[in-house]
């Protein structure tokens, strides 16, 4: 095969074409590594007027936004979406708006929802009752706070900013509403251990507290020392750890392994110190209270509607950081702390002042047994750690439907005023180079075509002159 020597213009052309290809490739590599430049706002105002919270609204909103994005494709100007909301969007719609914000599209929204911040939380009550503790926090308003579930309205009260209930059963979803604001939670009960370690001396108090807890569905492990060589074993007592026990209950002044109990609390276990157990010196470090002296029982009070006053109790002084959950009225005109709780590490310690709570059951009214059972069930529920109720819809760091307005703000940001929405964005001059780069970035296929055409031209020229 003979090769013809190229003439000079053709040779120059081939070199030029190759140079163009190399330059195109270099530009493409630069564009790939070039940081996104500052963007101008090309506002696309979208009036979002969904009046319901249905998930279908998310689809509508998605469609609208995608249409906006498609219409802007090829445009070198970045976008801004303005949304005017007349109702708080559904969870999916909020998640989609959040995703849009995450995709570097600015979303401004005008609040025409007339909704206010409202948060609903539901916590399973530790124990087998299936009860749920519900707490609602909302902005004070003149409207009623209504709590309802699938079975209808459960309660309605004038909004007091914070309200709480204990519900024996819930048919999900649970909803709280103030005017146009509504929060909901799925209330699926989590699984947790119901085993309790009891440390007490044999006696009426330990017998009836055990009975109350077992009747409330707890499984009790422990050992009553009846004589130096004989004991009564409850359940199958084992090492105190959070995998085995939800709560350790101490009722009397008994010898304990304080190190193990402290470790148990630090790791997330619950400890209940009842009656004389408040005076175990080894547990002073984790006790939420300091006991002073014994407060006598008020004669006959067990048969009244404040039966706790009929029980002998320790006078408690709550430590710094401890929280007085329940107080009894006293004749001295001040409230006597009866139930004090404190967080220690990952766990909780609850102090109960009553020394002979069994008298509530035996000597109280006909409801005494049920009240005594409910009391101890509540005390254990205060101390036991319970996993959060699972939300089967979306699991992320946002509050979700439990506080929809807060969720919207967390995902999209605070609403803007109407004035802010209409104000023109500040213009910013771009250099010719940046403008060129932005244009090239907006059309990545152009560079590819230029490179391909240059290489093809060079190759054709070489072939025409018989070279390879």
């Amino acid at each position: 095969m003979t090769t013809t020597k190229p003439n000079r213009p053709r040779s120059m052309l081939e070199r030029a074409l190759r140079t163009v290809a190399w330059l195109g490739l270099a530009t493409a590599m630069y564009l790939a590594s070039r940081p996104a430049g500052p963007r101008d706002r090309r506002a696309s105002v979208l009036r979002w007027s969904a009046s319901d919270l249905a998930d279908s609204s998310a689809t509508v909103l998605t469609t609208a936004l995608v249409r906006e994005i498609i219409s802007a494709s090829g445009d070198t100007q970045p976008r801004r979406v303005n949304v005017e909301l007349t109702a708080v969007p559904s969870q999916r719609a909020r998640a989609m708006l959040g995703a849009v914000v995450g995709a570097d599209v600015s979303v401004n929204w005008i609040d025409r929802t007339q909704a206010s911040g409202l948060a609903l939380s539901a916590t399973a009550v530790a124990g087998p009752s299936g009860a749920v503790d519900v707490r609602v926090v909302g902005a004070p308003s003149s409207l009623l706070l209504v709590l309802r579930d699938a079975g209808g309205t459960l309660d309605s009260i004038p909004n007091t900013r914070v309200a709480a209930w204990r519900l024996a059963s819930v048919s999900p979803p649970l909803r709280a509403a103030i005017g146009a604001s509504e929060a909901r939670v799925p209330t699926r009960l989590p699984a947790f251990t119901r085993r309790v370690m009891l440390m007490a001396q044999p006696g009426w108090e330990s017998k009836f507290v055990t009975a109350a807890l077992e009747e409330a569905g707890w499984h009790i492990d422990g050992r009553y020392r009846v004589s130096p060589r004989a004991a009564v074993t409850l359940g199958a007592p084992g090492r105190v750890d959070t995998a085995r026990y939800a709560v350790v209950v101490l009722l009397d002044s008994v010898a304990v392994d304080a190190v193990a109990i402290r470790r148990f609390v630090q790791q997330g276990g619950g400890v209940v110190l009842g009656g004389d157990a408040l005076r175990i010196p080894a547990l002073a470090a984790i006790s939420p209270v300091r006991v002073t002296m014994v407060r006598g029982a008020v004669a006959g009070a067990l048969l009244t509607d404040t039966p706790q006053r009929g029980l002998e109790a320790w006078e408690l002084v709550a430590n710094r950081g401890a929280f007085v959950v329940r107080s009894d009225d006293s004749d001295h005109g001040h409230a006597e702390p009866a139930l004090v709780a404190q967080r220690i590490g990952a766990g909780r310690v609850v102090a109960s002042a009553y020394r002979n709570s069994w008298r509530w059951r035996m000597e109280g009214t006909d409801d005494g047994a049920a009240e005594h059972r409910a009391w101890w069930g509540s005390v254990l529920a205060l101390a036991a750690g319970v996993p959060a109720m699972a939300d089967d819809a979306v699991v992320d760091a946002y509050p979700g439907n439990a506080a929809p307005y807060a969720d919207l703000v967390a995902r999209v940001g605070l609403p803007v005023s109407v004035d802010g929405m209409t104000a023109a964005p500040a213009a910013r001059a771009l250099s010719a180079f940046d403008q060129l780069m932005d244009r090239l970035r907006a059309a990545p296929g152009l560079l590819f075509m230029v490179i391909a055409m240059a290489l093809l031209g060079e190759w054709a020229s070489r072939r025409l002159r018989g070279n390879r």
Partner: protein
Amino acid sequence: MNDTTILSRVAGVRRVLVRVVYTRATLLACGVALSAWLVVDGVRLACGGDSLASERSTGIVLVFALLVFWSLARRQTRDINDVRAALWIEERDTGARPASFALVTLIEALVGLRSLATGVSTVDPSARSTAESPLLQASANAVLVRTDVPRALRRSARNQLLGPALFLAGALTVLVVGALVRSGPGAIAGSVLRAVSGDSALLTPIPPLGSWQVRVDAPAYMRRAPQQFGNVQNASAVRGSMVQLRGPGPIPEQVIERIVGDAADTLAAARRERALLPTTNGDGWQVRTVATDGPVTIQLARGGRARLFVIEGRADSIPAVALLQPTRDSVFRTPEGSLALVASARDDIGLTNARFELIVSSGEGERFTARTVQMGERRFVGDRAGTIRATMDLAALELVAGDIVHVRAIARDAYPASNREYGSSETRSFRIARAAEYDSVAVEPAPPPEVDKSLLSQRMLLMLTEKLEKQRPRLERKTLMSEASKIGRDQARLRRAVGDLVFQRLSGDVSGEHAHTVGDGHDHGVEQQQGKLALSGGNAGGVLEEGDDSPVISINQPLLEAYNAMWDAGRELEQGEPKAAIPHMRLALAAIERARSAERLYLRGKPPTVIIDIAKVRLAGKDTGVTNLRREREGPPSREARRAARLIVAAQLVAGDVLAARDSLAVLRVEALGDSPAFAAAVATVLAVMDRNGDATEAFVGARRVLGGVVRTDAGAWSRGIPR
């Protein structure tokens, strides 16, 4: 074989072939007609109508079968003649290939000649020569000889008839099995029929349950007429009542009786769930069961639909009896006189008899006897309430001192069980006082005697004397004498008080120290000797003899000792010798202590007290116990939450299936009747609203409120609430 023989043999084959065709047509006609009848009947049942009447359906089947037969037989036998029979034989001649058609030719000629002879037609003259051709006859004969005609006929018949026969057999099987299933207990009727028939038209072959009639026959002992109810959902019945449900149409496929909640009797527990066998009754069905103590549901299913009937069973309560007179317990001094006894009795069904029952117990210590006396019996004939009266004659009861009579009234109802409990009233007891016990009446409510508060106690006097003795070295004699005399005077006053006590016990007189002296002519069991008191006569030891009429001497001896010791102490103090007085004073104090404990009276209800020295005996026993395991306690069932969930499910069902919601609520109501009447009443309200086709939302919310379960709690800083 001549022509006639050949022709007759071929004709015989023809006849057999015609018969086969007729038979086939018959089988097919029957099969098709039967299938058509099954389909039509099934469609009628599915549409809710009755099964076809037997005569009419048989007629339809016959006509249809004739039509089918006629169409089949006519068409297929029309072309069968001798020539075709000959051809059929030629086709089965296995010896000649290809066929010679000799037999067909011969038969055709012979048939032509026969037709000519009968004048039916004119035949080609060559036919006769053909028929008489020896070669042809020999060939035709050979065909007949070579062919196994009977075997061929059998095979043909089998091939023709097997299919139609199987078809007819299948239809007959469906008919027979369907009839059997329908006439049997209905549980599997539909499914079996559907499975056997495979006919989509029979998917719902039985009409759903319609209305029913309820009849409650109370137990015979109640003597009540049977109660008839219309199409009700529930009925109340006393235990043992026969409850009968009757309805039109075929018998239900499934009837299940279920005990609801915790029914009381063990019989009920044993049959917590069981299938009842419905029976036919005229043109309908009926189901029977016996009511128990608690609620029972009967679920009846037919035609893919189920209905629920609730029997609210209740026990026949035992009679309530009240003793109206006497109104309180009493103690009689003597077993004389009489007491009027009046009692009333009530029962929910009817009383049988009532009477008073007296238990008379006699004896004391460890030996007691008891006898039962009955009086004032009265019989009732189903009365719901009645009064009985009697007079208790104490003398007739032959009571003795110390006897106790327990009186109560008892009443029985007519419940026919040997171990049936009776109703009883409160018990009154009447005691015949013992003689000695009656004497003690004087000490019962008497207030304590006035105490002379100016007196110093013996312990105080002893302490003062000991103090004086300590100070004696520092005191002048005169001062000592003065102080000692003061104490001595107080000692004398106390001694006189003790003396009064002694003489009061003995004689009833106060100030006996002065009134009773030696030789005053009275034997008080004690006498004064040189200022001191001494036991007199045979009571020197202070121990009482049997029959002695001074019953308190032995008790008073410590007081006598105290008196005398005080006298000695007083004399020493008067002489200014406190040191010498102290031993006497201590003796006096000890004697007073002894007297105090000796005089403790043990009234009824106050047993002698033994106080254990716990510290001394603690763990002194030689035996030791063992470590043992405690069984876990079971919690009571948490009904409310489950009931709330079921109520909500029922509420949600209302929109889709009202009947199912109604049945769920009916079960919920009867379950709650025993332990939560308020909730049961609230559910009854829901049911009533649903029966009126009203909006039950408010009623549902009300029922849920009754269950409670929504408690406001303190919304404090602690994350968990606690009920207020």
